[in-house]
Each structure stands twice: as C-alpha cells, then as structure tokens.
C-alpha cells in the first residue's frame, strides 16, 4: 500500500467519522452536568393555553416532563428550580408542585424577580428556597380574572343584552349584566375553598402550622428580606448561593449545571402560528385575556 494513499484514505475516513459524530450528536444533544436547572419563567399555564403571541409563559407540561427526566437521569444529583414568575393558573401550578414533591433528589428553588402565588406554591415544595433581598415572594391567595362590567354603559346608550342561556346562571361573569349577590357569594366561596387548600398545602410543604401561615398569607406579596423573616424562604442569596446550597444538600463535589429547556422544533412553531391564525382561537384568546 502506498503510504500517501493510505494516509489520504485514513484521513478521509476520520474526517467523515468526526462529521458524522458531530451532526448526529447535535441532533440528539441532551444537557450535561450533575445539577439540573429547570426554568419556570413567565405566567404558569398548561401546554395548550401557551401561546407564542401572548408573551412569556411557563409551560406546565414541559416543566413536569423535564422534572421527571432530570429525576430519572442517573447523572443528575440535584435539581435547581429557577423561578421568575408572577404565578398563573391554579391547576398547572398544582401539577408542577406535585411533580416537585415527587422528586427523589434534593431540590432547591431560586426566586429571581418574582415567585408569587402559583410560582410560590411550586417553590414551597422544594427542600429550600433562596431569593434575593428584593425578590417578590408570597402573594398567597386565589383570584378570578377581573373584568369590566358594561351594563350601565349599555343602558345609557339603550343597548339591550339578549341572554340566550339556560339555566339562569349560565352566563355568570358576563360583562353585559350585573352579577347577582348570590353569584358573587358563590364565586367568593369557591375562591375561599382554593385559598384554604393552598394554605394547608403551603403550610405542610414549609413545615409551618396553618395558623402561623394564615396571617402572612393575606394575599399580599413580600420582599425577599421580609419573606425570610416570616419563614416564607430559607436564605437570601444569589443564584450561585442556591447552587452551592443544593451542592451541600446533595453532597455534590463539583457542581455543574445542566439546563433543561423546552425544545421547540420548527414544526411546533409553524403549528402554533397556524393555531394563532384560527379566528375562533383568536376570539377565545381575547375573551380569556379580557
């Protein structure tokens, strides 16, 4: 065999092997490290209500999937929740919280600008909570999205609201008529039920008594420094402090972060855009937001 030809053939094969390995690796890339960072940014929503045009949303389905993946990954030793969210829908928040409670590995939550309402519910399920002095924490409570009621304006302009619903309360919450006292009380009762459940869940997660938590959980938000005083968080610090705290908890010698994020393919983006252009979905979105 001619030496130069031999070198040429071998070099070609090696270059081919490197390129093949690189592109195949890129196609199946997975986060590497021993601490899984799972971001919860934006308003918490279920996967189906997440929309490209509605700003940042924390997709509950994707977050839960990543939590399970990180927990099942034998190379991951601890999980760091990176939270920057004002809260969101009750059900997806509770589902994420359950996924955090079911983790078999140590978990620390770091609250950036905000970890309020549903986001705080999720953070409470972690083993420890770290936040900045000025982070917004707490805001424990339940709310139905407010709306503007037009019935007075409609009366002034002699506009009639025709109610074609049955039975009588089916259009409860319609902006075109006044809510009755009965309907208002019903709504408040439902919110109370959610609130009591939240209260007992958070108290349980934080090893506090419901009685100790109730005066703090009055719906208001707290700064990180106040949250520490009231026992809503465990430590004031930075993201690195949260990472080091987790490393101590999980006995990780050389902590390396692996960020788990939602993977969006071009196909997903196209299908989302298509959904946005559906007129019925667009009207629904407006109604939900109003």
């Amino acid at each position: 065999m001619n030496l130069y030809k031999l070198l040429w053939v071998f070099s070609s094969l090696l270059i081919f092997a490197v390129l093949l390995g690189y592109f195949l690796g890129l196609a199946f890339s997975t986060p590497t490290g021993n601490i899984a960072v799972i971001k919860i940014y934006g308003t918490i929503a279920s996967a189906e209500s997440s929309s490209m045009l509605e700003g940042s949303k924390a997709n509950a389905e994707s977050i839960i999937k990543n939590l399970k993946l990180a927990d099942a990954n034998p190379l991951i030793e601890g999980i760091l929740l990176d939270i920057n969210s004002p809260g969101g829908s009750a059900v997806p928040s509770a589902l994420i919280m359950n996924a955090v409670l079911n983790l078999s590995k140590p978990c620390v939550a770091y609250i950036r600008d905000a970890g309020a309402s549903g986001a705080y519910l999720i953070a409470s399920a972690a083993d420890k909570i770290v936040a900045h002095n000025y982070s917004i924490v707490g805001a424990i409570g339940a709310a139905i999205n407010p709306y503007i009621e037009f019935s007075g304006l409609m009366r002034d302009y002699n506009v009639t609201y025709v109610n074609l619903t049955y039975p009588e309360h089916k259009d409860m919450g319609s902006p075109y008529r006044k809510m009755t006292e009965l309907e208002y009380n019903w709504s408040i009762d439902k919110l109370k039920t959610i609130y009591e459940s939240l209260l007992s869940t958070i108290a349980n997660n934080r090893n506090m008594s419901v009685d100790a938590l109730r005066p703090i959980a009055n719906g208001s938000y707290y700064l990180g420094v106040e949250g520490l005083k009231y026992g809503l968080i465990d430590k004031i610090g930075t993201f690195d402090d949260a990472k080091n705290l987790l490393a101590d908890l999980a006995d990780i010698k050389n902590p390396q972060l692996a960020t788990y994020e939602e993977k969006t393919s071009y196909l997903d983006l196209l299908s989302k855009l298509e959904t946005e252009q559906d007129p019925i979905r667009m009207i629904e979105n407006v109604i939900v937001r109003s």
Partner: protein
Amino acid sequence: MVEYSITLPDEELLPSPAPLLKRSIAFLIDLLVFNFIIYSLFMAVFKHVSGLSEELLTLEYVSLNPSILGAFTGAVGASLVLLLAYFALFEYVFGMTIGKQFLGLKITAKNPNISTFIARNIFKSLLLPLLPIDLLGYAFTSDKQRFIDKALGVRVLSLSHIQLVRGVL
C-alpha cells in the same frame, strides 16, 4: 547444442480463491482497526457533542425519554455506514483492506468502480444480519465466492507464493 537461458523472477504470485479462514481473520483484523481508530473517534465526538452516555440507558430514563433509544440506534446505524465506507474505500483505492494486506488477499473486479465495492460490502455493514446467507455462496459457488461477489463479478484471491525452479531449457 544451443544453450538457452531465461531469467525467472525469484517468486511468482499465482492467484487462487482465498480460503475462508484467511478471509475471516482478515475481516477480524479490519474490525479491530475500525473499532480502535474510526469507531472510537466517532463515538467520542458523538458522546461529547450529544452529552449522552451508556449510563443513561436505564429503563426508567428510556421510558421517559424514548428519543435516547433513537440516538443510540442512530449511532449504530452511523457506525455501520462508517464500516461500509472503510471497506469500500480501501478496496476501491488499494484493492484490499488492511486485514487483507496482512493475510495476502486481493480483490479483483470486472467493474472496479466505487459502487461495486459499496455493493459487495453492504452485507458486512448495513445488512449485517443477512451476511450468513451471503456467506453460503462460499460453499455453493464453483470458485468459492460470496453470492454478492459472484453477482458483481468480484473475486477475493489469495496470492500463493509459488517457488519456481530456475532451470535450463
């Protein structure tokens, strides 16, 4: 009496169908060369870029992330493509692979183009499960060649060293 003399080479190489044992040993040598150099490099790059490792092949993790099986299946497929490239390229350029060079084997083909060598090696790589059937040709063909070789007009020959006696005619 006129004395003629001709000068013969010290040795003449007379080709004959390569014995199965020699071909098998040559194949094993090629697999070793491929494994330690080309496959190792491919897997190192693949694992480094993807972040995947065999440790992730647990039932729990795979059930949650079935794409990891796709990744490793893809890696197996890619390494078979590399194996095919190794055999086809060496045989096209040199008429032999490294293993065959060690064992004194050579390939002759009616149409020695790259597609012939890709086709004859497909059972040693991408269609590996069908190789035993192809190998039966060694027993059933007159000149002891694989079926695919017979179809493509390819022969694997052994270069037997025949010592010719210098003589006086």
